[in-house]
């Protein structure tokens, strides 16, 4: 695997749209060609090299390309957008749309990310070693196809609207989450190791939510069923199982509706 290193040298006066920072766009290019890729500030088109020092050449394919981005990226959008393979490591806070619509490969952010990370994600792995903003792993506006597959891991907290319209894949949040989790979800799995506020599983059709901490307000559409013991991915303990959203439509299997499941830990 070849590594391309980008180090931010000029901060944009507005925000930088850098949808070209992906192994797909870099693949097969040398450092100077990579520096010539387009980025945008508002309506102005610039070169990637106007804002970043670029060193190293990319591999022949996305899979053989690793990109390391250094510096304060909190005004850089779209890192790793639509990537299909390879690896991106961002050493700093990044702005919106990290890994949005990604289909493969791995992104690691050693910092926080703003909203819309992992929007419409199909596959691959997104690791955020800080906090995530709102709409992590959610669908794009209007789309009923949210996160389809892959895995998102957040070390810290996540914002509101986690996993909206999620259909598959997995999201693990090490800390707390804000309101609205897995709204309209029809599949997938969300694990919240910290506390949750309210509106977990609202309008949820199918899928699973695990909460290890507290829930401020439970949805009225989730009914307590039983206590169950769970052991999975390093999580072990006794959980209260709720099913819902009782107000929502559900598929039936053998005449029985299949509900979404919400597990809340009640003991070790």
């Amino acid at each position, binding site marked *: 695997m070849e590594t391309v290193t980008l180090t931010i040298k000029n901060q944009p006066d507005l925000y930088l749209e850098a949808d070209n920072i992906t192994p797909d766009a870099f693949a097969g290019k040398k450092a100077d060609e990579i520096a010539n890729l387009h980025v945008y500030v508002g309506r102005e088109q610039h070169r990637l090299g106007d804002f970043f020092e670029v060193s190293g050449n990319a591999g022949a394919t996305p899979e053989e390309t690793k990109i390391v981005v250094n510096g304060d990226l909190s005004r850089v959008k779209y890192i790793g957008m639509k990537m299909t393979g390879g690896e991106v490591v961002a050493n700093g806070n990044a702005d919106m749309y990290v890994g949005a619509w990604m289909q493969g490969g791995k992104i690691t952010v050693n910092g926080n990310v703003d909203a819309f990370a992992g929007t419409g994600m199909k596959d691959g792995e997104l690791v955020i070693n800080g906090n995530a903003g709102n709409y992590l792993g959610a669908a794009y506006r209007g789309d009923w196809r949210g996160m389809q597959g892959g895995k998102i891991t957040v070390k810290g907290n996540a914002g509101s609207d986690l996993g909206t319209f999620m259909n598959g894949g997995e999201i693990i949040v090490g800390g707390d989450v804000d*309101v*609205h989790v897995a709204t309209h979800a029809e599949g997938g799995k969300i694990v919240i190791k910290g506390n949750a506020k309210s509106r977990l599983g*609202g309008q949820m059709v199918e899928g699973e939510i695990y909460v290890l901490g507290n829930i401020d307000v439970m949805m009225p*559409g989730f009914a307590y069923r039983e206590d169950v013991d769970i052991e999975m991915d390093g999580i072990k303990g006794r959980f209260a199982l709720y099913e819902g959203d009782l107000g929502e439509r559900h598929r039936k299997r053998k005449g029985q509706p299949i509900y979404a499941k919400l597990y809340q830990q009640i003991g070790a």
Partner: protein
Amino acid sequence: MTRTVTDVICPFCGTLCDDLEVVVSDDEKDLLEVYNACAIGAEKFLHSQAKDRITRPRMRQEDGSWKEISYDEAIEYTARMLTDAKKPLMYGWSSTNCEAQAVGSEIGEIVGAIMDNTATVCHGTSLIAVQDIGIPSCTLGEVKNRADRILFWGCNPAHAHPRHMSRYSIFPRGFFTGKGHTGRKVIVVDPRPTDTASLADVHLQVEQGRDYELLDALRVAFKGEKLPDFVAGIPKEKIYEAAETLKSGRFAIIFFGMGVTQSLGKNHNIDEAIAVTRDLNEYTKAAIMPMRGHYNVTGSGQVWGWLFGFPYAVDLSRGFARYNPGETTANDLLRRDEVDAVFVLGSDPGAHFPFSSVKKIYDRPSVAIDPHETPTTEVCKVHVPVAFVGVEVGGCAYRMDNVPIETRKVVEPPEGMMTDEEFLGRVLARVKEIKGV
């Protein structure tokens, strides 16, 4: 001698009453009296005639004072500001006609602006919800002629849409509703016992910010599933009862307002309310409608819909249209310092945005186009007064149910005053010159 103009359209709220009568002087310069309007609408017509009205553009000076400038100078400043900026915000677009909105859209397209309208602080979250789940709705005449279950959720038409209840919802006698209000059951959901609630058969005083839970509870009740004893401060018996009332009607309509669009959950509250409406269509006929505020915020969403495909928050900066509320919405853009110039027309963000956003407008090159003196004109660098749409110039406007109605000109604007459309047309021409288009 005076003349009475009939069938006049009120350019205040989304109710867009079109039965006003306005008495004007024979020379059509003075507006003397207004009939059939609500207090707010009448004031809007009468204030257009204020003697202290500002009639010429003005520019803020270094020392904070205003200096009168010509329209030509104002056009030049505006065109330069928009073409110099990398990412200008062109905001407002609600208190104006569709013709002006279309010209503004072309300016935005050429300069690469972000176009946002007042839905962003009003029913923008409803539009998000509609994109997620759709909206079964109808025209207001369907409500008048058929509805026997009226639910006002987080809206207070007694104050915000004063003639709504008499023209469309609670009181009118229509084709299948000959008994008027006695044939209808009215439910109000609001954290306050509002003046609208006092007209209702049932008031559910929801705990503020828990609308989503209460709406979900209604859906659970429709299906006959068990509820907790209390949801959002409402005992379950009252929820089951409300659910039964709605299901048992022939035609149920839900009107909703800022109480849900601006509270915790925002678009999700609307989404769930629409889900309630969808569910009701399993049992009877049901529709839902946002109580749109500005008289033509709806039109702005329509014009951008056919030109760009999005009803608000349209980012044209890269020569094509993108949309994502939370990113391309005015308050997020200002808060995050994403835009470098601000143009405002047909709205007053100075009064209606959180102050932190107002300060960002003040910090940037900025132009406000508004017939009035407002908090927005107070913080902008240039203020361009224009003729009142619906009073001094006509043009198309869209009612809250998306019905387009052509507003009427009833009096002449002050001599030499431009309309929105004329001013924008001149700016467009100048922008094209500068950009060599």
